[in-house]
C-alpha cells in the first residue's frame, strides 16, 4: 500500500468522476435531439476495438524474454483465454480459467 488513506480516497474519487464522465458525456452533448457529427459516430464504432487492442499490449508490457518465466505464463494463459472464449463463448469461464492457470504457472511451475 504505497498510498495514504487520503491519497487512496483521492484516487478513488478521480476514478469515479472519470467513469461517470465517460458515461454522461453523450447525454451532455447530444441529448437535445441534435445528431452527433458523423465523424464522432464513426470513431465511436471503430475506436473500441483499437483501444482494447491497445490495452492488451499495455497489460503485456511487462513481459520479459530474458527468462522463461517472463513470457511463457502470459503466453499460455493468454492463448487459453482466447481459445476458451472461441470454444465456449462464456466471458467468466474464459477469464477465470485463464487467470487460475496463470496463477498456477507463476506460483508453482515458474516460481
Amino acid at each position, binding site marked *: *500500500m504505497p498510498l495514504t488513506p487520503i491519497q487512496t480516497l483521492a484516487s478513488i474519487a478521480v476514478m469515479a468522476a472519470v467513469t461517470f464522465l465517460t458515461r454522461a458525456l453523450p447525454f451532455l452533448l447530444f441529448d437535445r435531439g441534435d445528431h452527433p457529427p458523423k465523424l464522432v459516430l464513426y470513431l465511436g464504432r*471503430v475506436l473500441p476495438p*483499437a483501444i482494447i*487492442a491497445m490495452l492488451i499490449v499495455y497489460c503485456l508490457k511487462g513481459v520479459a524474454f530474458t527468462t522463461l518465466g517472463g513470457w511463457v505464463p502470459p503466453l499460455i494463459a493468454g492463448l487459453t483465454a482466447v481459445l476458451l*472464449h472461441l470454444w465456449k463463448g462464456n466471458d467468466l469461464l474464459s*477469464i477465470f480459467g485463464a487467470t487460475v492457470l496463470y*496463477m498456477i504457472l507463476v506460483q508453482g511451475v515458474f516460481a
Partner: protein
Amino acid sequence: MKRRTLAAAFPVTVPVLMGYLAIGMAFGLMLQSIGYGVLWALLMSVVIYAGSGQYLGVSLLAVGAPLHQVAFLTLMVNFRHLVYGLSMLEKFRGMGARKLYMIFSLTDETYALLSSARAPEGVDEHDFFFLVALLDHSYWIAGSVLGAVLGAALGFDTTGVDFAMTALFLVIAVGQWKSAGGHIPALIGGAATLVSLLIAGAEDMLLPALAMIVIALTLLRPRLEGNVKREEETPCP
C-alpha cells in the same frame, strides 16, 4: 417499486447475477491482496461501479499511480462507454431524476440487458429499466464485498490474480473480432501501441498510442466506413 416490476426484472438479470458475483469476487480478492480491506471494496463498488475500471484501479492503487495517470487510464478503459450512451439517449429520455442513476450505472452488462430486454405488458418501462440497473449494481457490490471477506479469511497467495485484467481485455477483443468491422481497427490499435512502447517506453506509451490510433482511423475513414456500411446491410446470421 411494484412487485410485478421486480418479477419482470429479476429473471432478466440472473446471468449478470452470476457474472457479477464472480468478477466482483475476483475484484475483492485482488484488492485484499494489495492490502485494502472490505470497506475499500465496498466504497469502490458503490461509487465507481465499473468492472474493468476497478480491476485497473487495483493495479493503479498497488503502484501508487499519480492522479493524472489514474484519470487518463480510467478514461481509456472506459472509453467504450461513450458509445453506449449514444444508443441509450432515446431510452432514458423522460426518466427524470432516475436518469442520473441510469447514466451512472451504465456498465457493459447493464447496457447489454437494456439494449435487448423489453418490459412485459403492464409493467412501466422506466421502472423496469431502473430496477434492472439497480439489481445489477447490488450484485456487483455483493460480489466484491464477498471477495474481500473471503480474501481476508483464506489469506491464500494471490500472486498472478492481476492477469484477470489481461484476460478480460482478451475476451472483449475476441468478441469484437467475431462481430463485423473490428479487424482493421484492432490491428491498428495493437500495432500503434507496440510502436509507442518501443519509442516512448512502458511508462508513457498510452497517450502517443492513442494519438496514432485516432489519426490512423481518421485517415482510413473513407475505406473503413465503406466496410462498416456494407456489413450493416447484410443481415446478421
